């Protein structure tokens, strides 16, 4: 028996006026996977998240979340989805106790222990109002609320916004632990790409005007390579991106950085063909952030 994907996007098209954001975007997320959506500003991450969260109806294509159309989720499906909005939106006129009491009424699987396990670490009284909390404290409350819902799917829109390193780490560690223990599907975006390396199983990389790349994180990091060439290797113009080599960029000191989904001999051949001398080429280690910048480009 094949499990139904937690998220299924097929041929998604969306415009803002004459500006086409997504043009036939397709991917799916298997249940129990933690997936990071990566892309530079303006490539449509927020649009996609809004569509998945049900706050934007796509112009065309299919977008199903837990089997239901994302823009018309029935109440029962909403119950299985936990949303974390950018800026950790919460009813800030409520206190800790009040928001727990309010939210618990909507979710039959509500886990009060999970909420207070996280929120008690703040060492704040239950009467403390959310509007009087720091961004980091509010993020804990919001995470506690979605985790206590015990949802099957979590969608997080840039959870890192406004968090310092400590709160980011706390948020991330708790999220990973709960998601793994509960076999939850997580779909997440973040501007802090290095965090994704600790969090995700899979990545989706989107670039303007290019096909979406979906891969497991280890698969992406092992297939996408970076090579370095000493200064003076390139005499003419650099080859355009997305050719035989994914991207060739010149550093400030004249070194060349070559990114490619190819082994070294193939890269050397492609460089020669592009009029670049491959002598002195050396493979380089890459973090996810390096790979992200190499894949999407600096500019």
């Amino acid at each position, binding site marked *: 028996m094949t499990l139904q994907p937690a998220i299924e996007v097929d041929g998604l098209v969306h415009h803002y006026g004459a500006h086409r954001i997504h043009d036939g975007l397709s991917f799916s997320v298997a249940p129990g996977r933690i997936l990071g959506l990566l892309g530079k500003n303006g490539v449509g991450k927020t649009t996609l998240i*809004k569509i998945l969260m049900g706050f934007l109806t796509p112009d065309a294509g299919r977008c199903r979340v837990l089997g239901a159309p994302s823009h018309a989720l029935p109440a029962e499906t909403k119950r299985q989805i936990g949303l974390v909005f950018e800026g950790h939106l919460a*009813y800030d006129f409520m206190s800790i106790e009040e928001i727990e009491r309010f939210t618990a009424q909507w979710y039959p699987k509500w886990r009060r222990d999970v909420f207070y396990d996280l929120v008690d670490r703040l060492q704040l009284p239950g009467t403390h109002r959310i509007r009087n909390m720091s961004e980091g404290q509010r993020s804990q409350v919001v995470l506690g609320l979605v985790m206590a819902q015990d949802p099957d799917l979590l969608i997080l829109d840039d959870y890192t916004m406004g968090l310092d390193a400590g709160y980011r780490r706390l948020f991330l560690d708790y999220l990973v632990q709960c998601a793994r223990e509960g076999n939850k599907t997580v779909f997440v975006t973040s501007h802090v790409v290095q965090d994704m390396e600790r969090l995700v199983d899979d990545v989706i990389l989107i670039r303007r005007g290019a096909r979406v790349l979906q891969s497991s994180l280890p698969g992406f990091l092992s297939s996408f390579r970076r090579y370095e060439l000493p200064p003076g290797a390139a005499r003419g113009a650099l080859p355009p991106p997305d050719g035989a080599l994914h991207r060739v960029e010149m550093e400030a000191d004249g070194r060349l950085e070559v990114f490619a989904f190819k082994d070294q001999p193939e890269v050397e051949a492609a460089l020669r063909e592009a009029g670049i001398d491959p002598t002195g080429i050396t493979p380089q280690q890459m973090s996810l952030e390096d790979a992200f910048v190499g894949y999407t480009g600096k500019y």
Partner: protein
Amino acid sequence: MRAIAFKEWLKLRSWLGFMLAAHLVFAAWLYLSIRHQFRFEHAEMIYYQANHIGRIFYDDLRYIPLLTGALIGAAQFLPELLRGRLRLSLHLPMGLAPLVLAHLGIGLEALLVFLALDLAALAITIGSFFPAAFIGSALLTAAPWILAGIAAYFGVALTLLEPRRRYQAANLALSAGVVWLCHRSGQYQAYDLVLGGVAGLVLLLAPASLQAAHRFRNGEP
């Protein structure tokens, strides 16, 4: 519904407390101002002004329901709209129409309590100084002002929920028009023959909010 009522209570309670105090102060002021007039003028002169000149002694009440409705609408929906917080409510596991109607129902209920308080204050005040027949007349005269309060509440809700600027302006103009209609005449019982029609017009503003919320949820610019 109970959960929504709990949320709205938490959000509105301080405003409701402030408004309750303001309405009680107004009720006392209305009573004292009419008593003051009876003390300083002959009763015959006051009856003459009321019966022949058509002076409305409780005219200060005219815009109180309007202000109350607008304030409750703003206190209820502005916090939901700031930073798109309405998305939290829209993700609650219930349908869009029941959710919006529950919010409107709760706000309207709170408003009706204040409006009933105003009418009671009016009836007690008028009954204390005028013959009993004046009470019914005063309540009928104030009825369109009450409807203006309800229209203001629905109008503010409709305008705030609407995501499209052009529609927002149209909704505001439409609501202002309905409110203006309710204040069109300053005569005693001027609306007696059209109260039902005006009430129907006011109530039509409520379902319009559903369309606005639908557009908000669909992310229409």
